[in-house]
């Protein structure tokens, strides 16, 4: 009988190993451990076991029962885990597919540059003021010390609307409009569209400038250098070298042109900088006393400086764009890169 018991155990374990599904395992349990199961049957026949062996037989029966129960439970648990894992595998997705969302739009590169410049200069106390794009000749020229029939008018090719009305050729008229309204101290920035009658790879008839004006008592050319140096280093990097050289604008004196070391060749000379190693980046100067006369400021008491720069030029240098016309063609393939 004890031998039968061993045979039963071996058989049951072998069957259990073969079992694949939960149902198969459950039927093995019924087959051996069920109320009418084989092990139960053997136990029921304990009477036929010789007395001396009875205790041993009973002990073995219990051992086998426990062992089988444990194995069956183990296998069931394993089956359950397996099923859960299979289910997860079935739900697997391709995580490398692109995300499904509204693709974020882009801000125009010229506007990005404008925002950056305004926020840098805002930290020096400059406020943004806008002016009209269609402007009186008076503000665009006369009050900026560019009288009619002055050769300085050749510096800018002008679009005319009618006698005395032009498309502004620079953002400088805003200087005059602001100074007419408020007394110093003045710290303003004026970004916006300007227009010149010119069209080729490096000129578009419309482009953007930003104008700065600071008028206070005791402001010097040294302050102009200081503010513009700090500003340009923030835009182009702390190690950017720059130089101030004399130039001419009818509404500033002394006037300066500010160059930065070429961002492409670092000063060695290349096509971008016409082999000079330097890039012209902005025009500036101390406000000419004539301009102060137009707005009724006491030019002995106040000094001021003004500066102006082209936003497209900055964007071209920053992003490595070589054709200015791209900014206004609005090709999606261009705009999406910024």
């Amino acid at each position, binding site marked *: 009988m004890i031998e039968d018991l061993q045979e039963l155990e071996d058989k049951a374990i072998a069957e259990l190993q073969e079992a694949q599904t939960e149902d198969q395992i459950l039927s093995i349990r019924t087959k051996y451990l069920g109320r009418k199961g084989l092990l139960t049957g053997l136990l029921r026949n304990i009477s036929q076991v010789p007395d001396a062996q009875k205790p041993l037989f009973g002990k073995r029966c219990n051992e086998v029962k426990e062992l089988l129960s444990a194995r069956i439970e183990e296998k069931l648990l394993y089956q359950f885990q397996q099923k859960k894992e299979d289910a997860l595998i079935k739900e697997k997705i391709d995580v490398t*597919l*692109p995300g*499904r969302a*509204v*693709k*974020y*739009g*882009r*801000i*125009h590169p010229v*506007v990005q540059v404008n925002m950056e410049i305004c926020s840098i200069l805002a930290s*020096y*106390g400059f406020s*943004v*003021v*806008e002016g*009209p794009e*269609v402007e*009186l000749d008076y503000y665009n020229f006369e009050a900026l010390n560019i009288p009619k*029939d002055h*050769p300085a008018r050749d510096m800018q090719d002008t*679009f*005319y*609307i009618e006698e*005395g009305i032009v498309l502004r050729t620079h953002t400088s008229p805003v200087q005059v409009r*602001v100074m007419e309204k*408020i007394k110093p*101290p003045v710290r*303003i920035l004026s970004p916006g*569209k300007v227009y010149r*009658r010119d*069209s080729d790879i490096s000129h578009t*008839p*419309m482009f953007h400038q930003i104008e700065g004006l600071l008028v*206070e008592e005791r*402001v*010097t*050319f*040294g*302050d102009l*250098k*200081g*503010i513009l140096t*700090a500003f340009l280093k923030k835009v182009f990097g702390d190690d950017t070298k720059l*130089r*101030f050289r*004399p*130039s*001419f604008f009818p509404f500033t004196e*002394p*006037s300066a042109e500010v160059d930065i070391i070429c961002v492409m060749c670092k000063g060695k000379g290349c096509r971008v900088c016409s082999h000079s190693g330097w890039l012209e980046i902005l025009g500036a100067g*101390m406000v000419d*006393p004539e301009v102060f006369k137009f707005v009724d400021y006491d030019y002995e008491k106040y000094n001021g400086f003004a500066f102006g720069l082209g936003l497209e030029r900055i964007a071209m240098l920053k992003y490595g764009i070589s054709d200015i016309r791209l*900014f*206004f*063609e*609005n*090709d*999606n393939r261009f*705009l999406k890169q910024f």
Partner: protein
Amino acid sequence: MLVSLKWLKDYVDISLTPEELADKLTMSGLEVEEVKKVLPRFTGVIVANILSVKPHPNADKLSLCQVSDGKNRYQVVCGAKNIARGDIVPFARVGATIPGDYTIKSSLLRGEKSDGMLCSEVELDIGEDASGIMQLPANLKPGQKLEKALDLEDTVFDIGITPNRSDCLSMIGVAREVAALTGKKIKMPKVRVVEGSENIKSLTSIKIMDAELCPRYSARMIKNIKVGQSPSWIKNRLEAAGIRSINNVVDVTNFVMLETGQPLHAFDFRFLEKRKIIVRKSKKDEEFVSLDGKSRKLAQNILLICDGVKPVAIGGIMGGLNSEVKEDTKDILLESAYFNPVSIRRSSRILQMPTDAAFRFERGIDPEGVIRALNRAAQLIAEVSGGNICKNYIDEYPRKIPSIKNIKLRYERLQEVTGTKISPRDIQKILRSIEMEISRTQKGFCLVTPPTFRVDITREIDLIEEVIRLYGYDKVPSTIPKFSSTEVKENPLLKYQSRIRNIMNGFGYTETINYSFIPQGAMDYLLLEKNDERRKFVRLSNPLTEDQSVMRPTMIFSMLDTLKKNINNGSPDLKIFEIGRVFISTKEGKLPEERNMLAGLLAGARSDDLWSSKYKSDFFDMKGCIENIFLDLNVKKIQYRSANYETFLHPGKSCAIFINDKKIGFMGGIAPEVLEKIDLKSDPYVFEINLDILSGFADNTPVYREISKYPAVNRDVAFIISQEIEAAYMLNIASSEKEELLENVVIFDIYQGKGILEGSKSLGLRFSYRAHDRTLTDIEVNEVHDRILRNIINVTNAKIRGE
């Protein structure tokens, strides 16, 4: 302006390299835009020594020369007669190139080997002499490169002269600047006029009728000249300056203009009728043929130089064909004058004749340099054309050209403006270096008189600029001014604009910038009605092209144009927006109204992912975005009115947007007729909103409302209503009775089709009821809810579905 380094060296000693000089000029305000090397038109030509000359055994006219470059001997067959043993000559070795693209090869000439070529001046294009081999100075060392030995290389600077520096529109002017920058002295050319006995005053006379336009007119006579080619030194100088050689007389006038800055003109005296000059203003429609052969009808008040009968030149701009110096010209009258800058500029613009002379006169020449230039030119003409200069010159100078004297320069003011302390001694030294006269120095200031050629210096600030420019901008210490606040108020629109950009970006719209100008025909493409205010557009009087001739009164045309270009570029799915201005004309002589607008365009598929399903974008995609702008700016009382507001929009898929009954914009699909007209193969939606008006309603500081702790009770009702009834109308009616407990009403379902009578639709509304202070009972809710339903049914004739 092109400036030859060699020419410059005639007037000032220069020891700097061309690059160093260019840098110095640029840093003092004469921007060198380009440095060009100018090389002779030959290569590989050296200095050689003739060792022997023997007759060619097989040719009478040729000789056999042995030449040496100091190391090797060469045999050269030569046809010239002017050579002898010991001569130093230019020698083009095998491999050398000479003008005319000619490369020297080793060859056999009548049986004798020839390893190179001895050259004449003409063959090397460095002179006129073609009679024989060029004889070089005996002290030149054989073997040297010829261009080095004769110093034939030059550097030309292209200098951008700013409009204020008319004094630098000449070689002497630039040389003065170089002298000041390098501490050297300027070497003015010596002027020596050898006069004959015949007096100019017995031959001709000058009468100025308008001293305002012509304050000074001087002349000399040169007789018995021989017109011909200029010597090569003049030709080379003119060529370096980019001016074509014409003949020796005209070339000298150009040469002296480039040298001194004073434009000159030479008349053929035989064509000056009545042998006199009269300077007067033109009469209306007077006709004149200028040197360039063009006939012009002149406007009134242009300054003319006339003889006793007719005009012979447009003063300061261009001479006349009728008195041009020709090959057979014998006697000339040479003019050197000062013309009113403003009048010259006006005339040159009216006539569209921006000549070199006009360019200088309109910027202002040295009024006291007129005679010097006259004499210099007379001297050179006599030298190169063999004429005789008549005794004396005429100098009509009826009106003194004002010059500025004794400008007060305060040292303290200089420091106030520049932020730099420069000692009075250094200030005076700098001023003297540019030929300023300091007439008095006192404690705190000095009196300065600029030289007459510096017409740009009239005020203290001009002197301050001169001092600081020459002192060096780089030496001015950088400082940061103390913070101060300004009373300028920023337009809140600026802040709203950046928030709008964020929202548009979040909804997938990319920002564009279109040109402000559009074609005039755009208004017709958009089918705008005759009385549409956008027909009152602003037109440019000098547009570049017809396509860019009108300032846009709406941004929609540009948006559609951008879509069209992008479809062509393979991007038909487009979401773009723009913030910019539109322009509406007001009154003549007044500035137009400029409105800040936001426009958007949506076209093609809703998502640009290729792998997920595509949906076509529609009206509600766009509306969702606009609604969020209003939400963000906390704008209330928005209405979307469906009446047909815009001619270019689809009447069934468009609306006008109102805030508080004020129209702020529109949105909708583009009308098929417009799409067809502009040949656009797409079905775009657009919107345009006036940001100036919008920002007036924007109040973006929200006020907190207490959150109720008690639950809401929802009641869903489906109404069967006429198809014509709009959702907004139903919502309006639903919330029209001011019921305190009704928290909000939303649409949860719209259905049309099976089970619903044709011409009707089912609209499901969810009513939410809530109280702040208690949980509502069914009885309370029912009472309010029934009242609301009754009202809706009464007003709209709706039926409740399922009843």
